[in-house]
């Protein structure tokens, strides 16, 4: 079972991202859960969402304490929130950042495995909006292979209808530009 924590700000679509990944995994015949951090959430405030994906039936309602994967949608969050909190030893943090590896390690003190992409620029150029949730899914696909591209694209089509093409383009570009180190 893989456990994922997504960090974002209220309104950036962390919960939607979690839902897209879980429903894509379920379409692939796997078991999955997606859920928000339970509570009153406010636009702009730091929020989290969670995903579990497994080949076997998932029998837990615990919160996610030790994620395998952390995805950070907002480039300002790693300086405010300990994004690597509880991360497994071989876990990975996937960041939206314009910094390079050395810059990230220095700025945020992260020693774990990293994947990085400048999702702000991609989202602005492709979607015309600084909403990075679908863009960061491209980085998640590249860095982890937690789900297949086809199933995720089908989930995007279902969720976004006409807007799906743009989101898929942003996801594809993020996939190509993500650096794993």
């Amino acid at each position, binding site marked *: 079972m893989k456990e994922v924590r997504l960090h974002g700000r209220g309104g950036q679509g962390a919960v939607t991202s*979690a*839902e897209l990944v*879980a*429903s*894509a*995994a*379920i*379409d692939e015949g796997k*078991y*999955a*859960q*997606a*859920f*928000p951090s*339970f*509570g*009153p959430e406010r636009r702009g405030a730091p929020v989290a969402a969670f995903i579990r994906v497994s080949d076997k039936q*998932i*029998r*837990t*309602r*615990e*919160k996610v304490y030790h994620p395998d994967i952390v995805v950070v949608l907002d480039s300002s969050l790693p300086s405010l929130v300990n994004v690597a909190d509880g991360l497994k030893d071989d876990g990975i943090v996937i960041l939206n950042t314009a910094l390079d590896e050395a810059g990230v390690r220095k700025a945020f003190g992260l020693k774990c495995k990293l994947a990085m992409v400048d999702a702000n620029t991609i989202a602005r150029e492709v979607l015309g909006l600084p909403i990075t949730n679908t863009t960061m899914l491209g980085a998640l696909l590249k860095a982890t292979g937690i789900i297949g591209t086809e199933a995720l694209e089908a989930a995007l089509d279902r969720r976004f209808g006409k807007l799906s093409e743009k989101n898929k383009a942003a996801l594809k570009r993020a996939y190509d530009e993500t650096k794993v180190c």
Partner: protein
Amino acid sequence: MGKRIGVEVSIAIADAVKLARAEVIPAYPITPQTHIVEHLAEIVANGELDAEYIPVESEHAAMSACCGAVAAGARVFTSSSSQGLSLMSEILYIPSTMRLPMVMVVANRAMSAPISIWNDHQDIMVQRDIGWIQTFAENGQEAVDLVLHAFRVAEDRRVSLPMIVNIDGFTLSHVIEPIELPTQEEVDAYIPPFKPKRKLDPRKPVTMGPVGIPEVYTEAKVAHDHAIKNSRKVILKAWKEFADHFGREYHPVESYKAEGADTILVTMGSISETAMTAIDKMRDEGRNVGLVRIRLWRPFPAQEFRAATKHAKVLAVVDRCLPPGAVCGPVGAELRSIFYKIPGAPKIFSFVAGLGGRDVTVERFEEIIDKAEQYSKRRPKELYEVIGVREK
């Protein structure tokens, strides 16, 4: 059979209510039930369900409108949580003794104070004695299935009682997980149209809900008590037929690795899944432990529960409710009663855990089982223990 999809449990419940062809939905939104009634409002506004959605001014009005609508012969659904459910309380006793069938989903949540929107079972335990049939769901699929089952049972003329399906707020209501929704044809084949014995009709006037003078009040209450006890047969038969129609089997209590177990953990609701994981872990470590989960809470399945635990030496009962000043949590009290003076009865230890959204983890279940086994050798000072209390 429908396709297995990833969907939020609340949305799937609303879709199940649509498949059950509810005709009147009086509802007032409250966290964490909100997504259920919001989605139903959407379904009705989109013309996907031919129903009257009544956005009432309070839960008190919601339940009052429910009563009126059932009395007029409609299939009725509503949903609530916590303080909202308590605001209904004055009305909740009325449809049950008046034998007005309807279905309510309660997304279980703590009671204030302090204010908490998070999950436990205190809201429904406040309403324990309202005389509704009550079930508890473990996961999203079961929530959907129990809603369909509830319409089938409640409206059966031999039952004619309102039913509550309890789902844990947030930990179930807000989770996206795999759920199979049946087709309309399948649901139509399982739930026949609602044909009440009598209804409000100006052409054939009847009086409903008159005063019960001392000469008849006791008899009315006893008739209600008989009705809910006798509903057992219909509840079981409807589950059996559910299995025939949809392939999923349900029983009043569910056992997991409990056969021959010395110590049995007892749970209700969605924490049972985490509890199963704890049992797996302890079994791997060579411990002779198992789990029994209560699905049917009212009428209480004493017979089935005793049968499921007859070889156990110790029961570790987990309540999600702390009634201050009581001898223990409501589930613990129920079990102590059904085993009273029964020869060879297991020793019963009562624990309270998971209040107001506090997570009940695998480690907590291990702690509960360990403590129950210790207490079976050395009697504890208190009749119950609250687990996971921070000391500083």
